[in-house]
């Protein structure tokens, strides 16, 4: 049992100290990563030793160990790859007293060791370090799991992510890819003259999206705060302040349930560009995603859960109303036009707000249109009612200059020509707050962000804004089925 193994290994900790070897060493001077040696000695033939006899030093975790008489074979893995340690009693003991017995008796699978020696390739073709020095750097107390792959308890993988990383190469690759995707996004934006900024996580008014926020309390201010649900309103204040191209790549929080696409904290990038509109943002979105795909998959055509997704072509652009008409024949454009024709302005307004055709269109889209959008598709022109921060369309009444990007039936990006009219903004906020407070009653009252409206009153240039869900993009580009596969430590119940 693990407890018995732990006791045995604790005894080995004592034994090592008894031999004058600290089982938790302070450091190790590594000369090469294992990958460096694999590259350096790629042409070393089977059975040959490095003739120069260069002394190398590697360090990493022992993943396997076999002892055969006077020989022991350990496989060692580090950050970049793997190599075999070839431990020959005669050669090791010649330079390190009792070296072989230490390896045999006191080194276990799971330990972190440092090994110095020369390089050879075995007859079987395994590149190896022939040990002339072996040192336990960190004694592990618990054994590595026997069966990790195909583990039925996926929860355990997320709860003990470090074991998942040790045992599974794909998991390590996923987090390396995540890091590359984020740095690619950042570099792309910086190359276009955007500056990265940091806006508050703790806010007195949560705004910028319609979602339930987390609440907390600041002791010394004696004040309730909420965690941001979006970075939008602060970033737009920056644009008002003259930062014409800004972005923030960071965590946002929504107090909602867990699912394969939702974690309470997730990473988004929001981008604002003065003097751009939603058309410009569509082009930017295409380029950003295409470059990320090239960077981590080496191609603009990728496979996700067995489905080929093609980023190489311009993404399809289609309005929400057209999609719904295609899917079920309902013609909202005509319906909206008809609704505007009903007698007086008051009557038209009443029809439109009952509760609203816009909401109906959106619900219809989610019901019949969304799931079928497998290839990258920009869904355009959302109704005004569901887009409180987007500018009304320049030529089509009732809809906004907005798009959402759908891939594999999932929303990946959301963008608009930003609403810059403070009077219109205030009216839309008031409607939203009223609706929200009616829906949630006393429990989750929200307030109007009057300071944001004041900022708009000082004049915001015409601006395009874009938000991309980073976790979902990483899922897509690493072929991961769940958001928990791309968050190192997902929230667990």
């Amino acid at each position, binding site marked *: 049992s693990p407890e018995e193994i732990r006791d045995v290994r604790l005894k080995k900790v004592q034994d090592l100290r008894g031999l004058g070897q600290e089982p938790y060493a*302070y*450091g*190790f001077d*590594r000369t090469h990563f294992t990958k460096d040696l694999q590259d350096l000695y790629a042409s070393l033939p089977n059975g040959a030793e490095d003739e120069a006899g260069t002394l190398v030093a590697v360090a*990493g975790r022992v993943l396997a160990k076999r002892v055969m008489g006077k020989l022991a074979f350990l496989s060692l*893995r580090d*950050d970049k790859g793997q190599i075999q340690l070839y431990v020959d009693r005669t050669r090791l003991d010649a330079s390190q007293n009792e070296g072989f017995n230490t390896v045999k008796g006191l080194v276990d699978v799971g330990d*972190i060791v*440092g090994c110095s020696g020369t390089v050879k390739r075995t007859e079987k073709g395994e590149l190896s370090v022939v040990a002339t020095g072996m040192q336990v*750097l*960190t*004694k592990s107390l*618990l054994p590595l799991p026997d069966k990790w792959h195909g583990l039925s308890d996926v929860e355990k993988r997320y709860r*003990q*992510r470090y074991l998942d*990383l*040790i045992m599974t190469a794909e998991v*390590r690759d996923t*987090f390396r890819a*995540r890091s590359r995707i984020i*740095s690619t996004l950042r570099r792309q934006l*910086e190359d276009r003259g955007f*500056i990265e*900024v*940091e*806006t*508050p996580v703790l806010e*007195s008014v949560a705004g910028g999206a319609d979602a*339930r926020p*987390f609440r*907390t*309390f*600041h*002791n*010394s*201010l004696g004040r309730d*705060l909420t*965690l941001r649900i979006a970075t939008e309103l*602060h970033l737009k204040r*920056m644009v008002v*302040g*003259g930062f014409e191209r800004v972005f923030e790549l*960071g965590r946002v*929080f929504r107090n909602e349930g*867990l699912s394969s696409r939702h974690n309470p*904290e997730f990473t988004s990038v929001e981008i604002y560009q*003065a*003097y751009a*509109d939603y058309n410009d943002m569509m082009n930017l979105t295409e380029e950003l995603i295409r470059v990320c795909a090239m960077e981590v998959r080496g191609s603009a055509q990728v496979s996700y859960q067995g489905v080929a997704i093609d980023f190489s072509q311009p993404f399809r652009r289609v309005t929400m109303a057209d999609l719904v008409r295609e899917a079920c024949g309902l013609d909202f454009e005509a319906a909206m036009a008809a609704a505007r024709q009903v007698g007086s302005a008051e009557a038209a307004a009443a029809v439109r707000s009952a509760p609203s055709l816009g909401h109906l269109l959106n619900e219809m889209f989610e019901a019949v249109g969304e799931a079928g959008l497998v290839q990258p598709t920009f869904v355009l022109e959302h109704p005004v009612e569901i887009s409180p921060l987007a500018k009304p369309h320049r030529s089509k009444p009732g809809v906004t200059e907005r798009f959402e990007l759908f891939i594999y039936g999932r929303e990946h990006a959301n963008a608009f020509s930003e609403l*810059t*009219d403070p*009077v219109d903004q205030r009216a839309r906020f008031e409607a939203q707050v009223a609706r929200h407070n009616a829906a949630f009653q006393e429990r989750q009252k929200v307030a109007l962000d009057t300071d944001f409206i*004041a*900022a708009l*009153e*000082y*004049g915001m*240039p015409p601006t395009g804004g874009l938000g991309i869900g980073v976790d979902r993009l990483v899922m897509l580009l690493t072929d991961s089925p769940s958001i928990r596969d791309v968050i*190192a430590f997902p*929230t667990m119940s």
Partner: protein
Amino acid sequence: MKRAGHLFITSLRVITCRFASKGAHFPSAAALRPAWATSCVLAESWRRHVSEMATGEYVLPEQWSEDLKDENGEPMSKSEFKRRQKAQRLAAEKAEKEAAKAAAAAAAPPKPAKEDGAALEDDASEITDPTAYFENRVRYVNAKKAKGINPYPHKFHVSMSLPDYIAKYGSLESGQQEPETTVSVAGRIFSKRASGSKLLFYDLKADGVKIQIMADARNSDLSLEAFTAVHNECKRGDIVGVEGFPGKSKKGELSIFPRKFVLLSPCLHMPPSAHFGLKDQETRYRQRYLDLIVNTDVRNIFYTRSRIIQFVRRFLDTRGFLEVETPMMNMIPGGAAARPFITHHNDLDMKLYMRIAPELFLKMLVIGGLERVYEIGRQFRNEGIDLTHNPEFTTCEFYQAYADYKDLLGMTESLISQMVLEIKGSYKIQYHPEGPEKPSIEIDFTPPWRRISMVSGLEECLGIKLPTDLESEEARQLLIDLCAKHDVNCPAPQTTARLLDKLVGEFLEEQCVNPTFICDHPQLMSPLAKWHRELPNMTERFELFINKREVCNAYTELNDPIKQRELFQDQAKAKSAGDDEAMFIDETFCTALEYGLPPTGGWGLGIDRMTMLLTDTCNIKEVLLFPAMKPEETGPKEADS
């Protein structure tokens, strides 16, 4: 006033650096020279061409033909012919206008500007009451909407940023214009003055720089009446788009001469006046957008902040570190000693703490085999707000397997000294620790930096010898006496760790103006650091102090799980004894350690404090875009009150 002047100097320095490093966006002077040279040559040939036409040496025929030759007998292309034809037409029109103007001037004496309703308005005609001002502008916007005109246009194409415009046309000579070039720029109006009934001067600002708009009715596509109407709609503070041609005024001011002038977003409030600016600190922080509009130097602080973070990221990326993200909400707040924020997840009905440090998660990733990881991100501490503390702040932490604190000492020196050199252009910086009105000090980042071993340093300073066993009650009593003797205040609970911390603050940190490492902290102050390999009861740890403030904290990581559990239990005891800043026991982390953490060096940097040093600011609020503020006493202010 002193303050503004001083910050202005800082900002100049910052601008110089920014231009030097951002090659792509802000071309260096050397890179620009060819572009300037080209435009000068063009302008020169243009002038020559015009003068030739005037002297009649060469006459352009009315039609282009294949065998057409220029003044030098060279064949002339069709496009060159068209260009010359257009220039000729323009020159003729200009001459005609000037003749007409001269004739009109001769015929009638100039009218006083205000006599009829169509006079041009400028800053001098501004309404001075803020409420009336706001109402007037809202009326204007509503009137436009009523007429079916959108006062907030959807798109204005900007062909060139103002910094690029200045780089490209800054070398024009006084009075020189390029009417054949079309450029469109946009920005915010900072001042407006009329000169007569046909000419307006605006200051247009964007990206922290300024050019002049010289709006002349004679260059506009509009009738004089329409011209006057368009420009009378525009007020100081408005966002406008201008399409026109570049040139310099006779006084040498770089300008754009508009053919088209579009109001893109009106400023409904009276902007702070150019003369008095915006100085009130509360307003500056609460309405940061106004601060950024009015005070150019503030903008530069955030550019420097961004460059500091970029520098750290690049430094670590080139050394093979992987940037990762770990949770901000946890079941247990671990990795540091501080009061956490508490929140609640509704669906899971679960209490969560906001993180106070990412340390434990990052070490778990090292256990998982990611040998070099870092995270730059927000941390949260539920503590008071003062000159150096904000409830949320930004840190960088990195962890490197097989490195120890000695390796990190060297890395810290090179990272920070190189950063200072790149951003400030020198290892030595001027800093005003008590604000711009008080004297400045010099901080010298030239490596190597002084290293003080904590306990022996303190012993030397106080001329005493501390007991080897710092855990003993005897040691604690001695420290209480020392604090009393030297008048050092240590509020309860008077634990050995807290007493030592106060004495070190008083006697060692005070010496650390230039970057100085205080090293080898006692184990009882450092529950996550590894015991020192030579000094008993001490750890392999250092803190970097600059201007007497902690900027970095690093150690050889404790990776013995048995020892770690013991130290966590000591912390738990301290907690139950009343030290609510002591750490929680994190069982998950202890279990992870039992799988084996390689020897690892770990390091943390306070990004906000580093930014304060390099932007010469002494209040953390200056380096945060939207600092946490006390609620306003009158409650939330209505924007249109």
